[in-house]
Every structure is written in C-alpha cells, then in structure tokens.
C-alpha cells in the first residue's frame, strides 16, 4: 500500500505534496486530518509559497532523532535573513511545529538582542511612534539599561 499523500496550498495558491506521516508533525495539520480525513487539499491562507517550501523541506528531513536539535539549528542558521526568519517563525507558529518555531524565534532573538534601537526598528521595519519629546522621556527613564 502506498503512503498517503497530502496536498498543501499556499496563500498564493501554489500546491505542495507531502506524505501524510511527515505532514502531521504539524499539530495543526494533524488536527485537520483527524477532523476531516478525506480532504484532498489543505489551504494555508497565511503562508506564502517561499515559506511553505521551507517548511516542507524541514518536514521532509531525514534526521536521526539525536541529531534533530542540531539539524533544526543549522536549518534556521542557513536562513539568517530576518524577514525570512519571521515568515518561517510565523508559519511554524500557525502550523504548530514547536521545534521549528523555537529555533526560528531564538535565532531572531539572538540577532536583535545587541542591536541599537535604530537597528531594531530598521531590521523589523518598525515605525517609531513616539514624538521626539516622548522618545527622550522614555530613554531617560530606561537610561540605566543602555
């Protein structure tokens, strides 16, 4: 009997095939399969195709359990760009793939923890929503942390 295959559909309507026993590492997919076993295509409206390709690559890994920790670390290390890591972390969070989510968030945290405020805002494209006066007030308050 051939292994059962699932089809996942990304936000931009691309289709990806993956064997069911690998796909169910995602708790979200596992629950969908349980509830609605016969479903042919699983839509993932929040995950773009580039990110979904990465997630599928991760789910398809052939790692011995004892090497898994190192593998997932290396996997995210190789995708050191913050926007990619954020997309990956968000997808792993939505799909409930704990190890991947942990590793991706840890990588982002490690990257930004020594950044200056300006660098954090630039890397994560955050708008400074304080007026210069408000900015000065809060910087004065937390001056001891700089």
């Amino acid at each position, binding site marked *: 009997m051939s292994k059962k295959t699932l089809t996942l559909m990304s936000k931009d309507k691309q289709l990806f095939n993956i064997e069911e026993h690998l796909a169910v590492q995602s708790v979200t997919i596992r629950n969908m399969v349980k509830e609605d076993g016969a479903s042919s295509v699983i839509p993932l409206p929040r995950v773009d195709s*580039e990110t979904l390709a990465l997630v599928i690559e991760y789910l398809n890994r052939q790692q011995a359990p004892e090497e898994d920790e190192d593998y997932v670390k290396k996997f995210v290390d190789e995708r050191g760009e913050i926007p990619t890591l954020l997309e990956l972390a968000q997808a792993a*969070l939505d799909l409930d793939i704990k190890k991947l989510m942990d590793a991706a968030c840890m990588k982002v*945290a490690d990257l930004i*923890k*020594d950044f200056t405020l300006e660098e954090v805002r630039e890397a*994560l*494209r955050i708008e400074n929503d304080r007026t210069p006066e408000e*900015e000065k007030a809060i910087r004065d308050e937390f001056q*001891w942390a700089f």
Partner: protein
Amino acid sequence: MASPHQQPTTIENLPGELLSEILIRIPAKPLARMRCVSKPWNAVLSKPSFIKSHLHRSMHDDDEILLVLADGGLCVPFSMTAHFSQSPRLELTNFIKLPVMLSQYESETVQFLGSVNGLICFCYQSDNDDFPYHITLYTDLVIQIWNPSLSTVLTLPPFQLLPNRYFDFTNVYFRFGYDPKTDDYKLVKLMSRSQEWLQVEVYSLRKDSWGLLTQRFPSHVIEIDNEDSVSVDGYDGRLHWLGSIGKEKKLRTIVAFDLGMETFSETSLPHSLIDHNVSWLDTLGVIAGKLCLLSCTENLKCEVWVMNEYGVAESWVKHDLLSELSGVIYPYGFTLSNKFLYVTFADGIGMYDQISADTKIMGMTSLHRTYKIVRYVESLVWMAPIRSSILKTVNRVRAGVDLQAWLTLTLIVCEVTWGFNNTYRKKMVQI
C-alpha cells in the same frame, strides 16, 4: 515554485503572539532597553503576564547557573561567584557585577537575606565611624533588593521597630519571599527579646512600605532556625522555619508564614522526628515544589522527608534519596532543578543529581565563611523603580545615645545608575 515578489514582513502586521515568542527569548537587560523601540513593544514588555512568562522560561532553562554568595570572614571580602551547574568548578568570569555597595563594604557587615525569582535581598551597615563594624546597629541598617539581571537596586524604607538598646540581646530575623496570589515580594522581620516574640513587620514591594502585624509569632516556639541556604523556600507563597518548643528545646515544629494572608500557622514534623534530638544540621527545603525536611541522625546519615500534601502531618514520607552519598555531609538543600547541595570537609560544596546519580564538586569552601547558593534567573520583575532620583527617608541616630530618643529623620537622595557609567552617589541632607 518561484513566487512573485512579496512585501517584506514587518513585525507589526504579525500577531502579538509572534512578537512575544521572540521577546521572551531575549535576556532581561536588553529587553529593558527595548521598551523604547515603540509603544506596542513597551505595552508587551510591561504586561505582568509577559513578565511572568519570561521569568518562567528563565527558571526552566536547562543551562542552570548558580550563584554562590560567601559571607566575609575576617579580612576576606564578601564575594559572589557564578557557576554553570553542568561544570560547577569553573567560575563564570565577568558574569555579574556586584553592586558597588556590596563590593566596597567590609564583608562582615553584608548579610544575605534571601532570594526569589531572580531578586536578591541583602542588607549592610551604612557608614558609622563611631562604631566598629561587628556591632549591629539596626538604625544604620540599609536593606536592598537587587535584580542582577537588570543591574538595578531598590533601597527599602526604614522599618519601625528597633531594638531598644544596643546590648539588650534582641534577635532580629529577616526572610524574603514571593506571594504568587498577590504577585508581591515581601520581607518579613521577626524580633525576639528574652524569649518573647515582639510585633512582626512585613515589607511589601508593591506598597513599598512596612506594615505591622497584629498576629505574633507562636509564643511557645523558643528558638528558630532562620537558615535559608539555598533559598528556594517561599515559592508557594509561604515561608517556613524549623522551631523548637519549650525550655528544653526537645520538641520541634514547623512554623509557616502565609505571605498573602500574612498569618502564621504550624505544621507537625514526621511523628518519628518530633522528639528526636535537635540537630544543627537539620534543615527545611523544597523538592519538586513540596516542603521537605533534611534530617540528620546521630550517626550523621541524612534522611529526606517530603510532605506530600501540604499541611497534612500524616503525609510525610521518608525518601531514600541520598543513599549514594557516604561520609559526613552538611546538607544545604535542593536547587530549583532538585539537585541536592551539601558540604563536606574534604571537598567543599558538592551537588548531587538524583536522576543521573551523578555527583559534581563545586569546591571552594572555607570553614570561616557561610555560603548561600541561589539560582541565577533572568528577571524583568521590578523593571522601573529606579527613577533618576529616589527620595528615601532613613532613621539615623546620634551615636552613643539611646536610640529611640534620638531618632533623626534623614533624607537620603539616592541616585543610582549602573551599567555603562557605573556610578553610585548618595547625598545626605539633614532636616
């Protein structure tokens, strides 16, 4: 599978859940700085639920770091060293900078009062040139709560009840704990004179003030053991003392203080130990969230008794946890990760992991010093009490005269800034 060019992700259009998942993995000090990034970040970082999750994560991190605080001996300064529990002999250098006050004061005046959730409470004698350091003048006692992960320190306001005279044999005991129900940190001060318990005072971090209790410490308890060497007590919102009853001090009891209700209660010891000779080695601790008693028998074999159901004397169960260890050991207690800490004359401080049956030696012991061991925890607790200046009133007393008659209110203007510029200034203005 090529996709059309997409807008790069911005964290603002990602849900707050992802932001929290990332921020929770950042140490406390950079997080304090990141409150300045934007208003939504400040909102996430100041949420009590986030602060608690961050603390929880730090406490359950596998790379446990233990801080060893050594009281000073004669001519030896107070010291603190940090060690990974995986390789405890190695000292982590430059891991934590002691507050300036701790490193500059004569060691014997510094006293460690307790530690919980990454906060360390200690006291020291402020400058008083008229008296030698070893004479404790409670009026000049400065009590502080220190958050090493944020490098911040808070000076407590003065308490009300002071010993009457210098040499009246008044004992003062302090203990520091956390109450999860009210999310508050409290310092309890017990005072006894001529075997009589005086009114109890409790400091609340939330209120930043001391309060007097109406209930007193149980009067039939003559003596207490105030040791809290590993400082894991107080996690369930209670502090515990091992007390002896009656003039002969043969009977024993456990006195508990509920930090939320601010009431005392008593719990019986295991039946077989109630009238067993009091050993100075006996100590209370917490193992896997349960109150335990480390009891050393006459042949210096240590037994661990665990109270399975809190407050139920019948639920004490003897555990044969330490049968692997031989020889004379001085039990300290259990770490947060349930490793047993002890001292031997030959090796100094040792750490025994019951699960792997593995013993690690930390070493570094001197008979003249007392060691306290606490877990280092990244903590955002008490993020911002340090403003550019804090006004604190302190009782100060003219030297050599009856204390209470000469209470002088002094305003201390403290300006504390640590970290990069590392300065500590204290100005005193008398009114």
